[in-house]
């Protein structure tokens, strides 16, 4: 799953498959990171990334 692993080959299958995988993982990871950092900031009272409302329900 990483390029330094023996089974990794730089071919189309790996680029497409692992590309898709890392793409999805990145979105998930970045999304969660964003949520966490923003939550910390919100808790500390430093508003980043736009003002928020508590009316989401």
């Amino acid at each position, binding site marked *: 799953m990483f390029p330094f692993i023996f089974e990794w080959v730089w071919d189309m299958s790996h680029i497409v498959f692992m590309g898709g995988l890392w793409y999805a993982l990145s979105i998930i990871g970045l999304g969660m990171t964003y*949520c966490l950092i923003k939550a910390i900031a919100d808790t500390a009272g430093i508003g980043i990334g736009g003002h928020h409302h508590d009316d989401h329900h």
Partner: protein
Amino acid sequence: MDSALIPEGVKRCSVGKFLIFLGVVGAVLLWGVFAMLLCWIKGLNQTNMNDYYGFALWIWADLAVIALGGGAFFTGFLRYIIGKDELKNIINYAVLIGFICYSSALLILAIDIGQPLRGWFIFWHANVHSMLTEVAFCLSCYFGVLTIEYLPLILENRQLEKVPFFHHLSHNMHEIMAVFAATGAFLSFFHQGSLGGVSGVLFGRPFGYREGIFIWPWTFFLFTWSAAACGPCFTILITKITEKVTRKKLVKDNVIELLAKISGWMLATYTIAKILDTWYWASVTAPSKGFWVLDFYSNNPFYGPWILVLEIIICGVLPALILITESGRKSKPALLLAVILAAIGVSVNRWVMVLQVMAVPVMPFDSWYMYFPSWQEIATTILPVAYGVILIGLSHRYLPIFPQEKELNPVD
């Protein structure tokens, strides 16, 4: 006693009653855990699997729960990507059911493999040409997505919500939920498909093998399609059961009917595709390998042609017809029948694509062998059911799963 934890404005049964419920289901759970430990400590000789049935009850259960859990990704897809806003009233439950299904699937896989401690090899030493690799990656990632989708629900518990950090986190996650849902839908499309590909690529097994396009056999698409069609049906079914058990209405009819209608059309188109696939397979694919289609269904006491009729006609055509007609959807018994049949249909399909693939002898001098699971296999398969029931019980009691509950069941 635990009233501080229960969402405001809803009524729940007494703690005592709830504990009895937990105790009963927990006993079943423990039985499953015991069987699971047996399988881990003593090995897979505890099962009735063998060299002919390398895949058996567990893999079927895996495929089935993933198909049934497909309600989460498809409802999410409809809610966040297509914009069917009414579905927000059932999406929480769809997510919870999906979470249960996928965590169960992962647990069963962890029991099913002969060397659980080496399970991570599938990621680390991945062979990207294997359908199972794709399944493992997408399944795990999508389970992550489901966790992310389920997490804000937990954080909305009355007590947890009081912690500002949790409150903000939950809020922020809601904000970008569409991104997660889209990623989930993308992953689901692939792993549902890959599960179909698992048997579809087996060119040594003419019963399972299908042609296709590019690297994907037709079963790849059929599996995604059927999961999208039957997953929501299962969500409806569980919702209806929950309503029955809690003796109150939890989701408005228009929400259910919308989901049922979409499922109905998905099921109808899927069934047509499945019929076409079966016809092509029976008349072209199988004969090219020397098999007449009934060879696959005869000379054995179990896998008869009835299984084909059950899967396609009774559990495909019939529920599709009910769900696409308005009167069918509006009639409660018909709707219930349709979602039950759809859930059975997709499970039968997964059964056939796992067990019958194993059972059909390929070498002309080989024989049919039958298989009956051992109690350990059954217990470990029931384990996730018990776990699911407990998780639903807890979630329902302490989390605001059904946004319409308060409105539909005003507390005096």
